[in-house]
């Protein structure tokens, strides 16, 4: 490149001013996105406040919360969520720990399994579960019945639905716990604790669990968000949960469903916000159901 070319370039090139340029397009997309997200929520809120004509009132909320069915199903869904969370922790944490410490060979298989729920969405899962567990569980190749069909008893159905929810939550919960363990390097922590004389129980309760608190919390919150609003598993298994209740409500009434939908949104927001708080990172998405 010779001097002449350099000089002609300096004449024709317009220097980009380093002052703050307003990113017009960025604002445009953002505002568009904000509108798209906020409008439906606003619409729901507004609708829910319109129970009395020409008045803004919380009557819809009041009526919704007073409904004994609401109390029953909402409580029940919360209990299910809690059960799923506890069962999940009891199952996934020791497994992830064991694999990290003792059995790295199982890692690929386990990761594959935690991916499976993406391939087997709720509707398919419930299809298979119903077909299998609506017939008595027999010892293979015999006629000896072990249990009555799980789907026919309350207890059995509860087991099925909690298990189903665990399957739905597994990718997030297991993954969250696993990453948390990797971040704090449980292997080294365990060895340090052992060299200081701790037994297994102490190690798990005093060393491991406290250090993966953030992962446990975010997994728990996500599970809560999934379970409380879940409809597919609940309705096909005949469980009296909040999801089916809300759906049924929508068939008969207008304002109360809107109110409850808005409340669901607030609950989800709270759960996600708490997750952000604890993990300080990217949000977690479960995708559609």
């Amino acid at each position, binding site marked *: 490149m010779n001097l002449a070319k350099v000089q002609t370039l300096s004449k024709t090139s317009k220097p980009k001013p380093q002052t703050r340029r307003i990113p017009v397009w960025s604002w445009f997309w953002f505002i568009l996105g904000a509108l798209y997200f906020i*409008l439906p929520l606003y619409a729901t809120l507004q609708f829910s406040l319109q129970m009395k004509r020409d008045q803004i009132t919380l009557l819809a909320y009041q009526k919704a919360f007073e409904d004994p069915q609401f109390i029953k199903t909402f409580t029940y869904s919360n209990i299910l969520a809690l059960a799923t969370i506890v069962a999940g922790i009891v199952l996934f944490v020791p497994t992830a720990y064991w694999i990290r410490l003792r059995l790295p060979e199982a890692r690929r298989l386990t990761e594959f399994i935690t991916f499976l729920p993406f391939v087997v969405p709720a509707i398919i899962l419930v299809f*298979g579960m119903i077909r299998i567990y609506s017939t008595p569980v027999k010892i293979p190749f015999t006629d000896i019945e072990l249990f009555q069909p799980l789907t026919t008893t309350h207890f059995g159905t509860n087991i099925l639905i909690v298990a189903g929810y665990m399957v739905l939550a597994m990718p997030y919960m297991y993954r969250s716990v696993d990453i948390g363990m990797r971040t704090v390097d449980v292997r080294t922590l365990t060895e340090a604790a052992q060299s200081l004389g701790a037994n297994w129980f102490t190690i798990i309760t005093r060393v491991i669990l406290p250090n993966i608190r953030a992962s446990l919390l975010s997994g728990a919150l996500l599970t809560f968000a*999934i379970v409380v609003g879940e409809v597919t598993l609940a309705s096909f298994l005949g469980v009296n949960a909040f999801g089916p209740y809300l759906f049924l409500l929508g068939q008969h009434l207008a304002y109360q469903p809107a109110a409850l939908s808005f409340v669901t949104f607030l609950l*989800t927001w709270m759960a996600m916000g708490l997750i952000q708080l604890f993990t300080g990172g990217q949000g977690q998405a479960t995708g559609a159901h």
Partner: protein
Amino acid sequence: MTQTTLSTPKKITPISFDWKKWLGVIPFFLFAILFLILPSMRLFVGSFTNNEGSFTFANVLQLFQQKNILDAYWLSIRISAVTAIGGGIFGFLLAYAVTIGGLPLPLRSALITFSGVASNFAGVPLAFAFVATLGRTGIITAILKNVFHINIYQAGFNLYSFIGLCLTYMYFQFPLMVLIMAPALDGLKREWREAAENLGATSIQYWTQVAMPILLPSILGAMILLFGNAFGAYATAYALTGGSLPIVTIQIGAQIRGDVLHNPGLGYAMAMGMVFIMAISLAGYSWLQRVSERWLR
């Protein structure tokens, strides 16, 4: 959890691997088998079983022959593709706006948090929200009618249709795209842009020759994931359309309640067909994710 050191002398077994190690993961595998693998296997085996109980390919073949089944798959594919591409593009633009696009940092946190919320907000509440927005007495419908004098329902729009379902699905598709693309866009190193500029490239040349090719695996992978996500959705569609839109998940739902196809094996085959599509979608996403991680690390 027990220690592996025993007080009894070790038995010398011909198999050289320590099976006791696998004890610890038995509960997990048992759980997976009972509640994930067995149900899936039941469907898988069932799709190859005919009404008499013997093995057959007929069900699978019928998938490709029966018109209403093909239509269902085609409809599901169309909805998934539209929301994957539309959601992908818009989600990408949003993610771009808050990362490289130069918007203030608080807006980014807000968008990420909200995306986390919105992508979990599917199902019945979402359907209701859209009814309140674009239903016959919805707020936007009202604004368009009273302020702009456009009656969308008269013009043929219907929330409880293909286009309505797509619009509703977008509500959780955009955020999912944002959540995947924001970290990927972060991974676009500033030095690449500077190196390109230093070597004489204009903005357009940088984007077409460097940035877009680097981002392409992430974008494609994310869109494929979005596709699978939409394909497997049931609750939102059912709550919104009540089953009037015969997508695959709705058909399967009907089949579960009562054997509407009059052939259980066919029902299982439909379910398997869906699993197959989801599996391909997941595999595609995984592979592209690995490629993009290699570049954006």
